[in-house]
């Protein structure tokens, strides 16, 4: 019993440590884009949402911006900008945090 509790405690410590060490860093990037229609918004949402490392996507049609939150260890602004351009929309970074 003592042995198993000790083992569990040790595993917990290791996992806690590794969890903190592996904590991904999320970044937010806002692209000025050429999205200007409901169909464009749908196209961006349906595609960018499934890109590796993407955690959140939103499209503001009136401001013509695409905001993406992503895991820095899995993707970057170059890949995401390229993905937007491949869909046929501009992708100029206006905000990055």
């Amino acid at each position, binding site marked *: *019993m003592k042995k*198993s*509790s000790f083992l*569990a405690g040790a*595993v*917990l410590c290791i*996992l*806690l440590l590794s*969890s*903190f060490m592996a*904590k*991904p860093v*999320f970044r*937010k990037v806002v692209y000025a884009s050429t999205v200007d229609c*409901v*169909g464009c*918004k*749908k*196209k961006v*949402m*349906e*595609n960018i*949402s*499934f*890109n590796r490392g*993407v*955690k*959140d*996507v*939103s*499209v*503001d*049609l*009136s401001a013509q911006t695409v*905001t993406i*939150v992503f895991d820095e260890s899995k993707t970057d602004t170059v890949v995401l900008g*390229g993905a937007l*351009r*491949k*869909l*046929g929309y501009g992708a100029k970074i206006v905000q990055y945090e």
Partner: protein
Amino acid sequence: MQHKTILFLLAGLCVLQPVPVRSQEPPEKRDTLDQAVFVARGNANFLSKHKDLRTEVITAAGLCKMACCNLAESFENSASVTVGYSDAVTGARQIRLLGQNGIYTQMLDENRPVMRGLAAPFGLNYVPGQWLESIQIAKGVTSVVNGVESMTGQINLEHRKPTDEIPLFVQASVMNDTKTDFNVASSLQLDKEGKWSTVFLGHFDGNFKEMDHNDDGFMDDPRQRQFSFSNRWLYQGFDGSQVRFGVRGIADNRQGGQMSGDWTTDIRNSNLGAYLKAGIPLNKENTSNIALVADYTWYRMDGDFTTRRYDARQHSAFLNLLYQNHNVEQHHFTLGLSETLDFFREKYLWGAFNGDALINTTLNNLGAFGEYTFHSADETTFSAIVGLRADWFKDNGVRFSPRLTLKWAPSDSWVFRANGGRGLRYSNPISDNIGVLSTGKQLLGPYTEHILEDSWTFGGNATWYIGGSSTTYLSFDYFRTQFREQMLVENGPDSRASSIVFSPLTALKDGYSYTDNFQVDFSTEPLEGLTLTLTGRFTNARQKYVGTLAEDDIKPMTSRYKGVLNAQYATHLNKWIFDFTASINGPCKVWEFMKGYKGMYSDGWTPVYPLLYAQVTRRFKGFDLYLGGENLTNYRQQDPILYADQPFSTGFDASCVWGPLMGIRVYGGVRITLWKTVKE
């Protein structure tokens, strides 16, 4: 103990996982289109806040939440529209809106009238759900611009668009009973300027295996194969002009009836159609324009019901010429002329019943109309639409149809609507009541005549958007449809129940026919991604009877109430979607001759029954996989065919359907979407 420790560790890990950063951007409300607000959330059904009429919208997400092989099935999760079978042998589906048969609901394909006449009984089966982008269900009488046939409401179908940047979409699904559905769509933009675009739509569905779960000797669903295609074109000029045209074709064969007996059905339907829509601006600002809508449809129905045949052809032409003016911001005018011409060639091969007849009928409706729309300066607080049509109907003369729609939104939280007006349509007695052919009864009355049906519908709606939200609302509506003329159909008015009698309402002394319809809708999003909608509908349908056996004037085979609970949960970015729909379906009063049949319906009413649907969808980049189940309570109408063991007797009747014919069904499918990309 060890298990508990492991669980504790896992729980700890889950808690310690970093929570994804969510955008703090408020829900997009700047865009006035409902579509823009709801596209990101993927809501299945919602009540439009901005439409002048009380309009329920079924979105693309809603069309994906069930097997939705065709249009009829896409209404399964709506309480406004009730879906049922016309009879227990042909597989034809029918809908009811405001307690009246779907023939009184005007069906529009992007604002062109469709599914008229012979196309009505099977039309709902011929619109693949996967061809559609959305469906709008408007209650009450609608704009005079689209004709005068909308009596209880209007259902507008928005197809996939030529401008959709989806060069290839493929969907395939199969049910455990071998029912198969396959759709393909391709939207292509043909030039860089975006002037020309087209969409090709293809569909196949089939039911290959005969099944008889209730052992009555009849197939539960007919063997069936259906092909359909459509090609739609769009030209958009830089000056604001637009031309849309397209073609459509359908071929459907269905064989039902006894599994191994002599009473069978063989129905062959074909349809070809073409349309043209053109809009030309008359000034640079495009505040004044003229538009032309032209449509031609050919329809063939050959129906062999063993003891009788009904073979019919229909040629229909529709022309609408419009002048629209909104030079002054708040005042819009539309003036127009319309022509609807229908030619029917109907062969009634009744044999032993009434003998044979070949009747050619030409129906002609020439109309002139005007509509004025006023919007308050902010475009949202108040609007009024006043419309008037003057229609000349062949053999019936001139009829005037006024219509009025008012909408008042005193705040962000409240919307009030009122609506009323007249609707007119020619009846098509046999195709409107296709189930009568699946009986051994003699048809009596003027069932070969296309009388002009005439109704007034009035109603209103109040919606409380709680806290000004577009997504949490409570809505109440009431509508009444009162017929001045209607082709009434009574099954078994005599004690022998050996006939079905058709009778114009005005031929009855003190005749009347009306429906009161009440509905409450509640929708909310208690958690991010979780949408709950709860709807209740109560219908009071009354009519004067042809015969004298009925104890009251409640309209038979019309469900008194329906309650629907929809729950949808979508994980962040819609990668997993869980849909659940539960409904409780109220009783219908049965025909007099059904009372006591095999010990059923002794109180004169059908039982209340539940229905459950569930579906799980997993979405990946470019494709979705889904798995679902229909009628999970496995509830089936017991003995839907009366005297199934004596199909050549006068008592034989397969038209008395009020509940599900098919039990539990499980299905799986895939949707593949290829989006248009550009080379970097």
